């Protein structure tokens, strides 16, 4: 049946919605910028050394496609196997079943509901600890750390995606596409690349901090610390 499909004919990958305060803002996504987002996602996956035959569990609903789809496409391009589970509390059983049955390399988009449900299950402790990375939404980071895990941040920052690298020193965004800055109301995001939707000084966090020091992982640009990093372990 695939042979009967025409493929994209619209100039748009699609239309997403992000929140500006309590206002929903639609944003068009073009194909060229989607391709660049895929390329950046692939660079992040390379930093984590995720590649062929690895298996990633993804917990993002369809409407989060503007943020997750570039990663999903990059995973497919890198011949990574993926599975899906819903991020809602009633679907914790699906994530748990997957983790019990199959060896997963990484998790993308863990919600706080899923985190709270999984950390209570003893037989998930080993599979959760083996995830590298366990990309979790900012509100899930605390409960996962409390359970002795070392999650990395997956954050939807307005229309942009932020992902932490193994340094876990804040979420990277693609600096060719987005500019992060400190503003009087908090950290702002502006469009830097040639994108269908242009955003200017959107406040994406009132409490986060920016880290402008070069990241040892090699990815360029500042990182946004939406969650405080863990304090360094005492020497010795």
């Amino acid at each position, binding site marked *: 049946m695939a042979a009967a499909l*025409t493929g994209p004919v619209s100039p748009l990958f699609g239309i997403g919605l992000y929140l500006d305060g309590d206002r929903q803002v639609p944003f068009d996504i073009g194909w060229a910028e989607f391709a660049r987002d895929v390329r950046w996602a692939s660079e992040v996956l390379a930093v984590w050394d995720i590649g062929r035959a690895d298996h990633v569990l993804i917990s993002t609903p369809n409407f989060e496609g503007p943020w997750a789809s570039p990663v999903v496409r990059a995973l497919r391009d890198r011949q990574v196997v993926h599975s899906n589970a819903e991020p809602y509390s009633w679907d914790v059983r699906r994530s748990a079943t997957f983790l019990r049955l199959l060896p997963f390399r990484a998790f993308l988009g863990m919600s706080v509901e899923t985190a709270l449900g999984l950390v209570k299950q003893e037989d998930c402790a080993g599979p959760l600890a083996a995830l590298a990375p366990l990309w979790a939404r900012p509100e899930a980071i605390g409960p996962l750390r409390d359970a002795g895990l070392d999650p990395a941040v997956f954050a939807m920052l307005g229309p942009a995606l932020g992902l932490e690298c193994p340094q876990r020193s804040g979420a990277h965004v693609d600096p060719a596409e987005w500019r992060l800055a400190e503003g009087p109301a908090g950290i702002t995001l502006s469009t830097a690349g040639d994108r269908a939707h242009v955003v200017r000084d959107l406040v994406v966090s009132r409490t986060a901090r920016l880290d402008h020091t070069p990241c040892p992982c090699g990815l360029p640009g500042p990182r946004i610390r939406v969650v405080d990093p863990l304090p360094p372990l005492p020497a010795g």
Partner: protein
Amino acid sequence: MADTQPTVLEPVVAAGDGRRYLEPELETMSRAELEAFQQRRVLELVPEAYAHSGFYRELWSAAGVDPGRIRSLADFRRQVPTFTKKDVQAYRERTGDPFGGMLFGPPSELTSIMSTSGTTGDPELIPEIWDAYPPLQLCSARDLWEVGLRPGDKVLVSAGSFRGFYDTFYHGMGLVPIFVDTWIGKGEEIVQALMRFRPAYLQLMMPTVLELERLEHTYDIRNALSSLKGASFAGQPLGRALAAKVRDEWGVEMFTYSSAGDTGTCWECREHDGYHLWEDLVLAESLDPASGEATGAGAVGELVATDLDNRAAPLIRYRSGDLVRLDRQPCGCGRTHARQWVVGRCGEETTVGGVPVVLSEVWAAVESLPETKDGMFQIIRESAVVDRLRLRVGYEPARTADVTELGDRLRHAVLDRVGVEPDLVLVTVDDLLSRSSSVAKFPRVVKA
């Protein structure tokens, strides 16, 4: 990044896409051509399964099947044994193979591993190999074309992702996905998105329909839905009262779809006369659940399905547990593929004090009252044979003045229709929906 997909649809788009069929040659092929195609595929499948699947090798060896002696569809139906989900689970527990011995190749060669809804237990793994479009989504391409979707149309993305992402498939159809949260509790956002983006299609779920019904006093729902060419509806049927509201009051043509024996989906066409099983993708049989013999034309039987297009772990003579009626006569739409009507699930029959209770009769009684016209109910039972009929029924608070009085009327309505007086547990519709553990399926029979 445009998918580099074949572009055979381009002339259709250029010509104004007036064609009814997406793949006319395949959708209208003769019965003889269909069976020849199925036989060819089955004869490839059997030796492949025997060579690569531990589960089938064990199952068939125990039944004395020699793959070399399967030379026709008739041989296949006569010699190859059927199996159930429990057989795969047993193999998995015995061997530790998470795929239950079904995989044809190493897991590293898979594209994705999805899972079943898990309505009645832990989700089961669904391994998949695909190139451009995920298989579950792809098998609805002809159906969405029949809904009237054409390249350039906007669609609201479906809510649930546990069976795979939809955007790539929508792109393949030339559609523009609108990434709006259409999950439970987002009725108002859905209405606003309908007004703002004027999409041609969305997938409705029972909770969404109920939310839109509640928003009728705030929004002009008919107007909000007026840009739709159609809407799909999955899972259990809506019930007559709600279906009439969607169709007649809101003006939406609704296309219900169901499972094709866990091999894919089957959808209504514009004739709304049964669900089309794409027989170039699935070989469908209807067998008497007790005897295992093929049922006669028009008789109800269990759907036994064989995957014809699954490269990862095809189901071969899988007993789906769905009770269906099959019709292989051409449909009024001109398509020649079989249609099925889903009657229920094996094991859903309940006998109460010696009286057989049919789900549809309970349904009709429940939706006959204005407070419970949404038809939201569950039979609560320990086993298929019980002394009392216990029903949990959802009522709409805004339409209910006195819950006790409603209980009295409902008890009589069920007694009149079903012949058994029920024990009732009345809860709000919201409360009842919150007990559902699935995106699309609302279980009608639950354990006490």
